[in-house]
C-alpha cells in the first residue's frame, strides 16, 4: 500500500523470539498434558503475554493483564450455564423437529441449531474480555457490553448470507466488524469503522468465482453426460483455499483502513503472497519435524515391544491391567502428538503471521495517542469462558 508522503506514519514492530516461544509452549504443553488440559487457561495467558509483549507501538510494548485463574473461573461459570442451556434446547429442538417434520431424516441437524447463537455470544464476549485485558502505555482498551444484541444482529446477517447463497457474506462481515469496532475504545478514545461494505465485495467475488464457476460448468457437463470433463472441473476447487486467503488478507487491509480511533488512522500493507508463504513454509517445517519425531518414537516403541505384531496377538490374553496400560499409552501418544502440533503451530505459523500483520501496519497521526485518558476497569466475572467451552476462542 503506497503512502501519501504528506502524512507522518508510524510502523509498529514485532520482537517476539521463536526460541522463547518454543520453550514456553514446550513447558506449558507438558503441564497441559499432566493436567488433562486444565492448564490451558494459564498456557493461553502466558502465550498472550508473549505475543502482546512482542508488539511495540512507538517503542512501547502492548501489555496483557489477563490471568489464568480468571479464565478458569469464567470457564466453570460458562459450563454451568451451557450444560443447562444446551441440554434443554438440544432435546427440545430435536423433539420439535420430529413433531413438525413428521420424523424427517435431517431432523438431527435441528437439534444442533441452539449452538449457533451461542457461538456469536461467545465470540463477542471473548473479544471484549481480551480487549479489557490489553493495555498500551498503561492505558486500557475496552469494549461495551452488548453481546445479546450482537447475537440478534449476527443471526439476521447470517440468514441473509444463507438466503443469498453466500453473496452477502462480506456485508455480514462488514456490519459485524462495525458493530464490534464502534463499541471498542482505547482509554477515552472511541474507535470507529466508516465506509461501505461494497469495498469488500470485489475481493469476495474471487472466492465466489472459485466456487460457482466450476460448479456451474460441472453441472452443464454432467447434464450433457461428459463425466470426465466434469471431474476435471472439480479440480477448479483447489483454487478455493488460495482465494480464501486472498480474501482474508484483502478484507483485513480494507477493514483496517476503515478504522480510526481519536484522530489516529491506519493502513495495512499485508500481502497475500507473504501469508501464503508463511503457511506453506510453516506446514512444511512442521511436517518434516513431526516425521522425524514419529520415526524416532516409532523405532523406540518397536525396540521396546520387540515386534509390533506381538502387541496385537497378545491382545486377547492381556489382563485388565494390560488393557488399562495400553489404553493409557494410546491416550498419552495421542495427547503428545496433538499438543506438540499446537506448540509448533504457534512458533511456525501464528507468530510469523502476527509479525507480518503487525509490521506491515502503519499508524497515521500517532501523536494523537498522547491525548488519550484512562478509563475504569471492567470487572469481568466469566472472562472468555463461553468461548473456551464452545471452542470458538479464535487465533490466540
Amino acid at each position, binding site marked *: 500500500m503506497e503512502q501519501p508522503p504528506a502524512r507522518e506514519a508510524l510502523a509498529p514492530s514485532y*520482537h517476539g*523470539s521463536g526460541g*522463547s516461544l518454543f520453550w514456553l509452549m514446550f513447558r506449558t504443553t507438558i503441564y497441559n498434558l499432566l493436567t*488433562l*488440559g486444565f492448564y*490451558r487457561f494459564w498456557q493461553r495467558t502466558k502465550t498472550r*503475554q*508473549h505475543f*502482546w*509483549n512482542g508488539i*511495540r507501538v512507538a*517503542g512501547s*510494548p502492548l501489555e496483557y493483564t489477563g490471568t489464568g*485463574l480468571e479464565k478458569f*473461573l469464567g470457564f*466453570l*461459570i*460458562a*459450563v*454451568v450455564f*451451557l*450444560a*443447562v442451556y*444446551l*441440554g*434443554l434446547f*438440544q*432435546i427440545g429442538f*430435536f*423433539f420439535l423437529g*420430529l*413433531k413438525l417434520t*413428521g*420424523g*424427517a431424516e435431517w431432523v*438431527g441437524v435441528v*437439534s444442533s441449531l441452539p449452538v449457533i447463537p451461542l457461538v456469536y455470544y461467545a465470540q463477542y464476549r471473548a473479544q471484549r474480555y481480551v480487549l479489557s485485558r490489553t493495555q498500551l*502505555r*498503561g*492505558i*486500557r482498551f475496552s469494549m461495551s457490553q452488548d453481546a445479546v444484541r450482537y447475537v440478534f444482529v449476527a443471526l439476521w446477517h447470517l440468514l441473509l448470507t444463507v438466503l443469498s447463497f453466500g453473496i452477502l457474506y462480506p456485508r455480514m462481515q462488514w456490519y459485524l466488524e462495525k458493530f464490534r469496532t464502534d463499541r471498542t475504545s482505547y*482509554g477515552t478514545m472511541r474507535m470507529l469503522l466508516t465506509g461501505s461494505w461494497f469495498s469488500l465485495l470485489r475481493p469476495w467475488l474471487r472466492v465466489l468465482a472459485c466456487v460457482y464457476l466450476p460448479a456451474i460448468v460441472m453441472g452443464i457437463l454432467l447434464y450433457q453426460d461428459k463425466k470426465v470433463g466434469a471431474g476435471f472441473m472439480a479440480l477448479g476447487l483447489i483454487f478455493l483455499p488460495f482465494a480464501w486467503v486472498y480474501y482474508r488478507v484483502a478484507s483485513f487491509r480494507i477493514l483496517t483502513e476503515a478504522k480510526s480511533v481519536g484522530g489516529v488512522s491506519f493502513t495495512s500493507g499485508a500481502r497475500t503472497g507473504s501469508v501464503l508463504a508463511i503457511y506453506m513454509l510453516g506446514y512444511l517445517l512442521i511436517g518434516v519435524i513431526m516425521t522425524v519425531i514419529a520415526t524416532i518414537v516409532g523405532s523406540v516403541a518397536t525396540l521396546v515391544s520387540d515386534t509390533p505384531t506381538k502387541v496385537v496377538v497378545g491382545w*486377547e490374553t492381556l*489382563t*485388565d491391567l494390560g*488393557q488399562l496400560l495400553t489404553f493409557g499409552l*494410546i491416550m498419552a501418544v*495421542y*495427547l503428545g502428538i*496433538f*499438543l506438540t502440533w499446537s506448540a509448533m503451530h504457534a512458533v511456525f505459523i501464528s507468530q510469523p503471521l502476527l509479525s507480518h500483520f503487525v509490521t506491515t501496519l502503519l499508524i497515521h497521526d500517532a501523536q494523537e*495517542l*498522547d*491525548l488519550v485518558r*484512562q478509563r475504569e476497569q471492567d470487572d469481568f466475572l466469566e472472562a472468555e469462558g463461553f468461548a*473456551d*467451552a*464452545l*471452542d470458538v*476462542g479464535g487465533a490466540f
Partner: protein
Amino acid sequence: MGSPARYFDGYSGKPRQVTIAVGTSTLAISALDDGRQIENWAFSDLRALPGGVKDGVFTLARKQGDARVECDDSVLLRDLRRQVRGLTRGPMRRRGTGRIALWAGGAVGALGVMIFALIPRLAVGLTDLIEPSIEMQMGDQVRGRLADISPFLMQDRSRACVAPEGRKALSLMVARLTEDMDLPYALQVEVWDADIVNAITLPGGRVIFFNDLIAQADSAEEVAGVLAHEIGHVAHRDGLRLSLRAAGSAGLLGLIVGDASGGAAAIVAAEQLLNASYTRDAEAAADEFAFALLDGADVDVAALGGFFERIGAEIGEPSGVAQHFATHPDLALRADQARSFGNSGTIHPILTDVQWQDLRQICDQTAPL
C-alpha cells in the same frame, strides 16, 4: 546518575522522558528535563511485567495501578533483580479459591444433573408425546439407511429372506407372543440374510433378525426368546427414547475439554461409557419384559438362557475394563436370570417341528432389500 526511561502516569497516554535510579529500598523516577522527582516506588511495591522478549526492553509497574516505566538498561534490571525479591510476581489481586471451588462444584453438579437426571427423564416424557406415526416414519428411514449400507456390512448377502413357509412360521411366532398385547404400533418383523448372530429393533416397531441367529439357534423357543426381547424394546420405545437422550446430551461432556487441547480422546471414551450404561439399562429392562412375555405365552423361558450361554461361549465374554464399554449386560448373568425366572405354568412348543424347519429355511428364497 540514573538510566534513561519513559514514564506513563497511568492516566494519560502522553510519555514523559525520565531517569530512574535504584536506591537502597526504592526506585526513584525523576523528570529528565528539570530533574524533579516524580515518583518513588518502594521495592516491596515493585514488579517487572512478564514477557518473552529478549531484546532488553522491560516494563516496571507497581503492584497496583496503571503507571508504567519502560527502560532498556540491562544493568539496572540486573541490579533490581538482585535487590528485589519477587520482582516478576504478578499484580496484587483478590484470591479466588472459594469462588473457584463453588463454581467447580456448580459445573460438575450441573453436568451431572443434566446428563444423569434431567435429560433421561425428559427423554421418557417427550417420547410419550411423539405420535407412533412419526416414530414409524423414523423407523422406515433408518431401515432405508441400513439397506443402503448393508452391502458393506454383510458383503454380497444383503437380501431379505422371503420364503413363504418361513414367513408364515415367523408370523405364527409373532402372533403367539403378541396375542393380547397393546403395542403403540404394529410389529414389522423381517429376516435379513447375513452372517451376524443378532437381531435389532428400529424405531416404530421394526424388528430385523439376521439369518445366522436363526441358523445357530437350537430350537424355535430360543428364537422366540430373542423376539420377545426385541418386542420389549418396541414396547418401551427404546429407539426413540435413546435418540432423544443422545440429542440432548450431545456435546455436554465436550464442554469440559473446551478448545481442542487433547482431552478429546478422554471425552470420547467417557461418552462411550455413558452410552453403554444407558443401553445396558435398556437391555436389562427388555430382558425382564421378555421373561414375563414368554411366561405369559407359555413358552419355555429357560431356552433363552441356553441361547445366551452358547453365544457367550462363542464370542467370548468381555471382561474387566472392557465390560464397562460393552452395550449389553454380561451374557452369563442374563442366562442365569432367564433360568431363575422360569415358567409359572405349563410349557407349550411355540412352533411344530415342521414349522421350525420352515423358519430355518426362510432364506431359501430372497428378495432385494
